[in-house]
């Protein structure tokens, strides 16, 4: 009940926006832009003929592989760059140059290297989510408070113990922040990549619906589904923040 009360204003705004949208379509007698109801029936059509699940599965699989690879590379790399000064001074300038390049700018190169298939979007997801995670992890190591490292030194623990029991736990919350950013970017990128050069996925579905007879009801349906899945992915990462090894950072 409390929850419902809190979300009442945003539900109201959404309802008003949908009503305005509906009114606008009716008022302009648009033949192409769909009414909200057309979007609902369009979505139903996609669910009924099974294509929606295929596209969602295709997009999510690409994100899972690309993002998973990025985590496996970014976290150890970030820890190493944060911990070993030489690694930081050598690699950081390279990352600073590569990081601002939009993932979209990599598309031509991805097509050249990997062709039009599943590897290109996975590569784009990897390249776009790896940088924020490396940076967050590195910054995380650099911002560990000295008093904790000093205390560990005082107890005479080995360098290995220092790393596993102090450095990694201290940085873990930052790593999770990086993963949240990385997954958000990955989801943005997979849709963009699929629009250009693929035959499956939600991005492809949107472009295909437009090309195959201006089915804008399906275009809008695809957009809304992308939004909802993105929200769920973020919610999934938020669950990680409730983990014992991360929660301490946010508790006061």
């Amino acid at each position, binding site marked *: 009940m409390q929850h419902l009360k809190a979300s009442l204003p945003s539900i109201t705004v959404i309802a008003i926006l949908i009503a305005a949208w509906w009114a606008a379509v009716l008022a302009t007698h648009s033949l192409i832009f769909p009414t909200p109801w057309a979007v609902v029936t369009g979505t139903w059509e996609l669910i009924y003929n099974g294509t929606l699940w295929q596209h969602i599965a295709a997009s999510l699989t690409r994100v899972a592989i690309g993002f998973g690879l990025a985590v496996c590379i970014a976290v150890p790399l970030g820890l190493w760059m944060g911990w070993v000064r030489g690694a930081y001074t050598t690699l950081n300038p390279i990352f600073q140059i590569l990081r601002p390049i939009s993932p979209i700018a990599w598309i031509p190169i991805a097509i050249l290297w990997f062709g039009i298939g599943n590897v290109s979007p996975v590569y784009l997801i990897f390249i776009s989510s790896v940088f924020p995670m490396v940076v967050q992890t590195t910054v995380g190591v650099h911002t560990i408070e000295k*008093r*904790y490292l*000093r*205390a560990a030194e*005082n*107890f005479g623990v080995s360098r290995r113990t220092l790393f596993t029991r102090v450095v990694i736990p201290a940085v873990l919350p930052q790593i999770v922040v990086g993963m949240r950013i990385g997954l958000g970017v990955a989801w943005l990128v997979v849709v963009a990549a699929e629009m250009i050069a693929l035959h499956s996925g939600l991005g492809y579905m949107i472009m295909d619906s437009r090309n195959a007879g201006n089915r804008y009801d399906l275009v809008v349906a695809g957009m809304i589904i992308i939004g909802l899945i993105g929200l769920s992915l973020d919610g999934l990462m938020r669950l990680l923040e409730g983990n014992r090894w991360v929660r301490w950072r946010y508790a006061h």
Partner: protein
Amino acid sequence: MRTKIEVRGLSKSFQSDKGRLEVIENISFSVQEGEFVALVGPSGCGKTTLLNLIAGFVSPDSGSVVIDGTPHEKPNSRGILISQQGSVFPWLTVRENLMFGLNGHPPADIASIADRYADIVGLKGFEDSFPHELSGGMLKRAELARALVVKPEILYMDEPFSALDALMSLRMRGELLRILAKERHTVMLITHDVEEAIHLADRILVLSARPTRIQATFEVPFSHPRRLSSVASQELRMAILRELGVEHDEADASPRG
């Protein structure tokens, strides 16, 4: 009584924007085994640097620290530093924090040793709590327990209770004395609170403003439990405050050092 810590001609300067800053200048003194020595001095005088030098966290420009007759250069668990900010790991529970220092022990014993020390400092029932669930005073107890659990010969305490409120700080002093009465650690305490020094220490070294030197030494001849309101301890407090440059009437007016 034998000499535990010998500080020989320690000096330390730091590079600053305005050139070299002489922080510690030729300090020598020694601490007996089981002795409680307090270092008091004006804020910013380099007390913390001095303690870090002695504990081995900072290397001196010249001079040396000798502990038990051998040169001391790197920190180890024979001497544990407790700082004002505290350094209880926020990602570990109280028990896990206490277990941290006991790395070399057989794993089966570690938890029970940790729990025993949690009990000693009055944290029984909070072994599974995280630091953010504890009050400031309890956090200090956890820090103290984590230091004691490794059975250090020396405790280096840098304003350990100054972040606590007056009442809690008084309570923690009592707690510390109770623990020290059982296990005779050698203690070096840094404080700006003269009353705290008189309450706890066997000997008080008054430090000068930068560059820090030892300006005066006071023995505290009172046995525990001490009555801080006694005439003798008030006179000692006045004498120390005068060394710190506080005028007689100012010292009378201030309820605490």
